């Protein structure tokens, strides 16, 4: 769980005066799959400001992944309102959601989820290619920005390697580069160190720290208490509800 030198805040908390990246009001999510009705989220209120580094913890089945999917515009809440950058996304159609995912959100997954037949730099270019469908980005600019993102994660030299030619830690760094290449408002990570050993996991976390230092907003879903302790703010989800919202350290 979150570190003990905690300072409990009110639930919609966050220092007043910051710019909200995320505002959730009474968020519910129902699934109806295989005759089972799952009430994954049961009313979440939450505000996350620009530049925050937040971890979301909880047991499996607590609803934390569902929350991440909604935050990432991969699925829509059944009930309640979600504002991303002060814009309500609950009314958007699938194309508009895709546009948001492409422009505002970067994903990092536990299983890296790189396309196996594309080289590292081509993987990083992918969001730009789809962004290019609506906003013209030249091939050269795409490659340049992808290379910059790779340099930023320290993998400029691996640009032409296929995912199966580099290590797990390197793959995850490529994924981080891909998530950052669009300069998104929000970086979402789901168990980013889950498939890595301690040492490489530590490298990736250090990378997240650096990304945070650059002023990015990060939300990491994890059940690793060490990551929870590392982030300035730690949320705990339990049975579809926000159980705790803790600010660590000073």
């Amino acid at each position, binding site marked *: 769980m979150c570190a003990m030198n905690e300072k409990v805040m009110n639930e919609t908390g966050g220092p007043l005066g910051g710019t909200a990246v995320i505002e959730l009001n009474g968020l519910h999510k129902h699934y109806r799959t295989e005759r089972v009705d799952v009430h994954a989220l049961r009313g979440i209120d939450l505000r996350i400001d620009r530049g925050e580094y937040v971890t979301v913890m909880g047991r499996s089945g607590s609803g934390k992944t569902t929350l991440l999917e909604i935050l*990432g515009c991969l*699925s829509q809440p059944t009930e309640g309102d979600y504002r991303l950058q002060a814009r309500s996304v609950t009314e958007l159609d*699938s194309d508009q959601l895709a546009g948001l*995912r492409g422009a505002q959100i970067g994903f990092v997954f536990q299983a890296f989820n790189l396309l196996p037949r594309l080289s590292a730099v081509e993987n990083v270019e992918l969001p730009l290619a789809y962004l290019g469908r609506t906003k013209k980005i030249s091939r050269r600019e795409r490659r340049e920005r992808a290379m910059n993102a790779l340099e930023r994660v320290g993998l400029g030299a691996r640009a032409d390697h296929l995912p199966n030619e580099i290590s797990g830690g390197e793959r995850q760094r490529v994924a981080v580069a*891909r998530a950052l290449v669009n300069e998104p408002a929000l970086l979402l990570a*789901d168990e980013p160190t*889950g498939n890595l050993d301690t040492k490489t996991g530590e490298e990736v976390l250090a990378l997240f720290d650096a990304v945070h230092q650059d002023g990015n907003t990060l939300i990491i879903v994890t059940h690793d208490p060490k990551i929870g302790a590392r982030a300035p703010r730690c949320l705990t989800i339990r049975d579809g509800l926000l159980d705790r919202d803790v600010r660590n350290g000073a």
Partner: protein
Amino acid sequence: MEAVRQAFRLLLAHKVRAALTLFGLVWGTAAVIFLVGWGAGVKTMVTNGFAKTGKDMGQMWPGRIGEQFTPAVDRRHLWFSWEDILHVRRRARLATLVGAEKRQYIAVTAGQRAINMEVRGVEPVSQEIRSLPIGAGRGITQADLDHRRRVAILGVNARRDLLGAEGGLGSRVRIGGKPFEVVGLLDRVGTQFGRDGEEVDNQVWIPLSTHFAFWPSDWTDDDVVSFAIYRMPGRHLADETEAELRRIFADRISVSPTDEEAILGWSPIKTLRSLPMDQQDGVMYALSATTLIIGGIGVLNMMLDSVRQRRREIGIRLAVGARRRDILLQFFLETLTIVAFGGGLGLALGVGGCLALEALALPDLIPVPELSVGVVVMAVGTMGGVGLIAGIVPAWFASRIDPALTLRVE
């Protein structure tokens, strides 16, 4: 283009399945070209075969009086005399040309060779109706008829068999022992679809009057002809022309014009009309299109499987900003690439095969698939339709995939 590369990657990743799938497409497309082209070839062969008997030609000949309930053997034989033909020629309004022909097998000798040949007595008008290609010399003229000249015209095979390589115009042949001079040689006509005996290439033609003089009828003093030959003013008037001639003949030889056994008629146009050529086209197309559709089902199956296996890829693409229509387009283009590749090979095979068969110069009676813009358009169109359906369905499934579900770690 990304979709093209992905399509070939997909083919390379599953070589056996790809080969089988492509085989269906290749063979299906080639089959459309072959079979539809072959149908057209058969049609042309038949049409040409009939056309060689004469343009808009018809024939008419006498039978027996067809009184009902009388056994055929007891009925009176009828015949047309040359006078009858000349009478009809004067009276006919619709038929533009009318002539008489008499044919008989007679021994023809030249030097040491003696062959039983069809010797045909003709008028100049026959040559016109039959549009005969005179290669050397001349045809039978009115003067030949008036003077009952002993002149002969030989078909290509008749000339080869009788005279060999050295013989030609001016050669002497004996027909039934009587000496004739060869004044004309016909070019090759080829196989004809007709009902009047030997092919022209094997025949010997002499003036009709000479034929009567040397080989008269043995039961009457009339100059008995074998049949009348005529040209109709156009194929749309085939029935009317025949009805008119039948009426004049019936009146002339005193039979009922409705007695279908008394006067018999034939024309290639009527025969052609009765052949199920257009139905044949439909059957050919249906058969070949089915093959292509089966190929398309193979592609459909392969793509559905590919979509299933690439759910995660689709999820990733959606997560990084792909719209549903981007996914739809990607898979659709992939399928189209595969179909275009297989179809292109099939097209090449079909067209190449047709050209090769054409180059072989097969004998008259073996129909060669005929290439035409229509056939190719038909093949490409069918292929396009198959590709469209085989492409849309998997692409639609791909675009409906829920990214959230595919990206969860199982």
